[in-house]
Each structure stands twice: as C-alpha cells, then as structure tokens.
C-alpha cells in the first residue's frame, strides 16, 4: 500500500506541467507547420520538368505576401499573422523596384492549393510575384527541479518551475507567377526559452510561441533584404532573370545635350 502511494506520487510529480496543461487544453509538446511543397504540389503531385523560360520581372513589381496555410488549424490567430506580414511589408515597401506589397489573407489560400490557386490570387490582386512564408514551430513545456514545490499549492502560483522551449523556423520563397519559377528564398529562425509558474504555463507558452514567430519573421526579413541584394547582383551577371521597367523617362541624354552645346557654341562664334 505504501509502495503504491509512493509510486503514484512520483508519477504525478514527474509530470505536473503535462498534467496541468492537458487539463487546460494545451499539450506539453506542441508543433505546427505549413509545408510549401505540400501547398504547391498537393496530393503527391509531382513538380513539372524544368523549362527554359526566363522570368521577366516588370519593375516596379506588385508583390503578394502570404503565409502558406497549415494543414491543421493554426494556434496563431489570423490577425497576428497579418501583423507579422505587415512588419515585413513595411521593410520593403519603399524600395524602387516595388510598386506595392499586398498581404493576402491565409483564408484566400485555404480553399484551393497549388499554383492554380496562386494564379487566381494573382489575377485578383494584379500580382507579378508571390512571396510565400512557410513555417515550422515546436514548443516543449517541461518541469524544472523547482517544480517539486508545486505540491505546496502556493508554489504553483509563485515558483517558476516550468520551462517553455520554443523553436521556430520560417522560410520565405519568392515565385515569379508567370513562369512559376522560384526566384529566391530566405529563412529565419528563433530559439526561445522562458520559465513560468504552473498556473501561467499555458498563457506563457502561447506568448512564447507568438514571440518566436515575431523573432523568426524579423530574422527572415533581415535575411530577405540580404538575399534580394545578392539576387540583384546575380541576375545582372547570369541573366537568369530579366528585368524590364514599367516606367520610362523622357531624358535629354549626352548626345542631345552635346549637339545643342556644340550648336550653341558654333552659333555664338558666328555671332548668331
């Protein structure tokens, strides 16, 4: 009898947070992800063979920006996702090669999948390229040694005996919508460890997961800026992507100015 009691106690002690979070609806180990490949090639569809078409980017570009929909309901609210995308949007909006960046709500992409869905979105918004953000996040809640004090009841409120580890990876892939070719990609990662009391472990876990996305998106945005510069330098050399400008300037070049200058000089010399 005594042995059974001790065993039950030890079992319960080993998983306070797990037990509490299960009661409160949060699993101690959570993961959510969206797969770019699954979205673009659903139902095991095989990607088409490579073709020789060269993407032509007509700058300034109208860019679509969206999260790749998750296969399961996401714990991240749509409003938070839009706010995350808005931060990236603001970073690139002033660039001379960007006419506009349109945030496409995830709900627009959940009905249909694949490039056909992207084509519909492109026609709807008049987009030239699409930036798709896929993600993978794992969060693990574990008890620390100090969680032993949870058994004092008061300890569950005051002792930070729960550790929340959140690992987040986001990846942005930019596609030319006409040729369906990948232009560039940029990743961003975040690793967070927070501690919380037992009663706040669920809430703190959700906050950490949101912060993980925030940090990973910020890192991805920095990487994307670097990748864009590399992309611009690369396509100038290898001509794998052609750039055409939608704007044109009527400019008096050196020849016109030179002709006028020489004519003015000549005319003045003649006393004209």
């Amino acid at each position: 009898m005594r042995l059974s009691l001790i065993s039950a106690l030890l079992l319960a002690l080993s998983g306070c947070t797990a037990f509490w979070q299960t009661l409160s609806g949060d699993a101690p180990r959570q993961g959510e992800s969206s797969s770019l490949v699954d979205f673009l090639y659903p139902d095991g569809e095989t990607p088409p063979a490579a073709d020789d078409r060269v993407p032509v980017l007509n700058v300034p570009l109208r860019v679509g920006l969206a999260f790749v929909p998750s296969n399961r309901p996401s714990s991240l609210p749509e409003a938070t996702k839009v706010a995350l995308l808005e931060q990236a949007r603001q970073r690139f909006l002033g660039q001379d090669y960007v006419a506009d960046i349109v945030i496409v709500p995830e709900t627009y992409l959940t009905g249909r999948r694949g490039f056909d869905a992207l084509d519909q979105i492109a026609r709807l918004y008049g987009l030239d390229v699409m930036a798709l953000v896929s993600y993978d996040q794992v969060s693990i809640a574990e008890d620390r040694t100090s969680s032993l004090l949870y058994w004092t009841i008061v300890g569950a409120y005051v002792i930070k005996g729960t550790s929340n580890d959140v690992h987040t990876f986001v990846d942005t892939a930019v596609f030319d919508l006409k040729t369906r070719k990948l232009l560039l990609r940029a990743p961003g990662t975040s690793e967070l460890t927070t501690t919380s009391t037992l009663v706040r472990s669920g809430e703190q876990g959700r906050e950490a997961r949101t912060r993980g996305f925030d940090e990973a998106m910020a890192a991805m945005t920095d990487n994307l800026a670097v990748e864009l510069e590399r992309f611009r330098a690369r396509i100038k050399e290898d001509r794998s992507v052609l750039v055409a400008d939608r704007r044109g300037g009527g400019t008096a070049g050196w020849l016109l100015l030179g002709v006028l200058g020489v004519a003015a000089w000549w005319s003045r010399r003649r006393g004209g």
Partner: protein
Amino acid sequence: MAADLRRHPVAVGLAGVAVAAAVMHILPGVADALAWRRAAVLEGAWWLLLSAHLTHFDVVHLGANLLGLGLLAWLFRGRRGWPWLAAGLGAALVTGLGLLLEPAPLDEYRGLSAVLYGWLLWGLLGPGKPLLAGRWLLAAVLVAWVLIGIAVGGGQTLGLPLSVPAHAPAHLYGMLGALAGGWIALRLQRPTTPRRIGMLR
C-alpha cells in the same frame, strides 16, 4: 524690355515651360498626379498627354532636360512662336498617344525630352534662319541616334545617373509629332503670308 520679349517669343515660351516644370517638381504630389499613366489616360484623363512632359522622376532628370531646354531657347530664340508652339504640342500629343500603342506597354512616363528632340528637329528643318550649314546631316544623325537607341533597347539611362531608364521610342514620337505639328501650323498660316497675298493680287 517688352519689345525684347516680343522679339524672342520662343525664348520666353520655353522659359515659361522651364518654370512650370520646376514648380511641378517642387510641389509635393503634383508630378505624381500629372505624370502619364496608361490606366488614367485610357480612362479619359487626356490632359496627362500634355502634362506628363512637364513632370520628372528626379532632380537629375529635371536638370538634364532643363539644360537642354535652355540651350534650345538660346539657339532658336528668334524663331516665330506659333509654329514652335504647334511643334511642341504635336510632339507632346504624338508621344502620349504613341506610348499607348506600344506592344510592351509602359505604365508610367515622365519627362520633357521627347518634346526637346521634336523641337530640335523642327528647329533644324523648319523655316527660319538655318542654324548650321549641315543641318540635314545633323538631323539625320539625330534620327539615327534615336533609332539606334530603340534598336538596342530603350532601357539605358543615356549615361546619366537616373532612377528610371530613358525610353528611347518616346524621342522618335516626339520628333514625328513636332514635324507634324509644325507643318500643320505653317499650312494654316500660309494664306495670310504677304507673299501669298501678293500672288493673289
């Protein structure tokens, strides 16, 4: 002073154009609103066909065109005003319409150079005191330069540090429009010239 101004109508007119272009560049939002935009023109904003030539993308763009305008004004200051005005209007209109018909269309166009090319060609070939002995040769060089620019692609910046590439076909439209506008103006003026009146007598 007033007599001097009347003697040089082209110089006075072009100075007015320069002031208008500079003011439109300085006032915030004006250049954006009055630039040639395909969608707006197709929706009926016809005035953009004319106003776009007074708008510019950046200071270098504006400066290069105003320099050209100043040289033109000095070179052709003694020419008659009406055909010159008609040549400028013809250049502006034909350029705006020509841009609409291009197979790889632009969305936006700004700049005075199409009109400058038109005025220079009209100045070389139109009536008035010849600027240079080899004006036909100079006109041919000018046209050839523009055609080469179109052939090699209009995306170059013509050696200037511009934020937007120059659009070479616009210069051809400008030259064609100026010749057409100037020629029409001369045709309309001809019955009232003293020579014609003398012939009728």
